[in-house]
């Protein structure tokens, strides 16, 4: 798998984390999430904690391990982010015509 051409912005990273988390309605462990978003576990933990503190993801732990899941607020963020991105991509395309 090749390297990405450009560095992801922090907001893109947050969106990707949320996107992967929403594909696991039963909850996802940090190890698996790290593979999904391609971010080392130690760095990913800080990002996920930030999302948890904002109520965009939720953390729940049983005796053995900790899982992360999506929240309605997180889903709302994702929808808004991708809608906005859709508009911005279109506006960006239009700007090439000028």
């Amino acid at each position, binding site marked *: *798998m090749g390297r990405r051409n450009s560095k992801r912005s922090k907001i893109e990273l947050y969106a*990707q984390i949320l*996107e*992967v988390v*929403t*594909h*696991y309605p039963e909850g*996802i*462990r940090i*190890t*698996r*999430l*790290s*593979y*999904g*978003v*391609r*971010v*080392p*576990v130690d760095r*990913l933990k800080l990002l996920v904690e930030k999302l948890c503190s904002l109520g965009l993801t939720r953390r729940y732990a049983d005796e053995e391990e900790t899982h992360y899941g999506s929240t309605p607020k997180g889903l709302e963020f*994702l929808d808004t982010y*991708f*809608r906005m*991105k*859709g*508009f911005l*991509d*279109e506006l960006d*395309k239009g700007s090439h015509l000028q």
Partner: protein
Amino acid sequence: MPGYEVRTGTSARLSRIEGDLKAGRKVTIKAESGGKVVVTGEATFEGQVTIDCDFECGTMKVEGLGFGPGGNVTIRGNLTVHGRADFDASATVDGTISSEDLDVGGHLESGPIDSKRVRAGGHLTVKGGLKAETVDVGGHMKVLGGVSLQDLRVGGHAEFEGGSILGEIRVRGHITSKKKLDFGQLEVFGSFSLPAGSSGQRLSALGTVRFEGDAACKELEVSGAASVKGNLGAERVEVKGKLDVSGGLRVSDRLRVYGTLDVGRVVECENLGVLGRLVGESVRVGGSADVAGEVRTTAGLKAKSVQVGRGSRVTGPIVGGEVEVGRETDFGSMWGLPWWRSAVGSMTTVGDVYGQSVRLCQRSSAKRVYGDMVELQDGATAQQVTYTKGLKLPSKYSLHEPPVRTERLPEPPL
């Protein structure tokens, strides 16, 4: 249960294991004979594993070691898992994958896949066809062959060679299908590009939609911009942004234009509502046409009944049974659009009008009016009025030529 264990950091030559296989990290599995290893039970790997042959097992589990190249699964052959394959890792499979439930936490790159369910947390790249009931991909999906799916959910972009996705399709980024696609309910936030002959049940797009040839879609909702290089057939069309159709547009039920619709040839529909702008060679409506914006045609607009709201403009002839021009109507309430406010002025302008019953309301202006019954209200203007049965004129009106009563009206252009 009898089985076999492979220790961390070692390699093993195996053939058939009756029972379970347990392996540590960084193990390599090779086939003893026949180029295939079969495990009748569960195959469990603690971390990185390289399988240098075809591999078949009941269920398969790979526990990840954390992020890094050390946690990957590499299979240099075909993978057959009769039950669930669960990888806390990224995986590369050179051959085909056949399983019941394939769940890969990271990226998955493989040959053709046939699995009831496929889920990849990262990107999914398939060098061949993809057959599944449900596919969930957190990142992008790229399939170099055709797809045969029921439901598809992709967080990023999706690219494939056509096929069929008959259930729900939800892609947050862009979708590109290089060959004809039959789709069910499609929702895309980004852009969507489809080749000629594609057809579907419902398409809702926020960004750009491009049909590269004739297309059919039962329900089409365009919030961004859409273009069709050919003819478009649909049951219902709602244009909130811009839709360009180079050929003709045939809508068997309702056509609503809140934005701009530009059609190269004929527009046909059963029920028309225009709050924005509609441009076409001609517009033929089986039922009623309500215009609260602008309609521009060269050959004309024909409907059983035509209502042109106050401040609207229709260029080209209007042909209808009942035609009313310039009445103040709250189309927003009529069509359940509480946000809608008329942005046009109070002067209503239309071209020639042909109808059994024609009414020009206040501040309306028409060119020539032909009708059995014609009524002008205060302040209405027309170049000429020709009628057969009756003419009702107010105290204030303007006719460029005196009205003419005739036995027979001229044939309408449509």
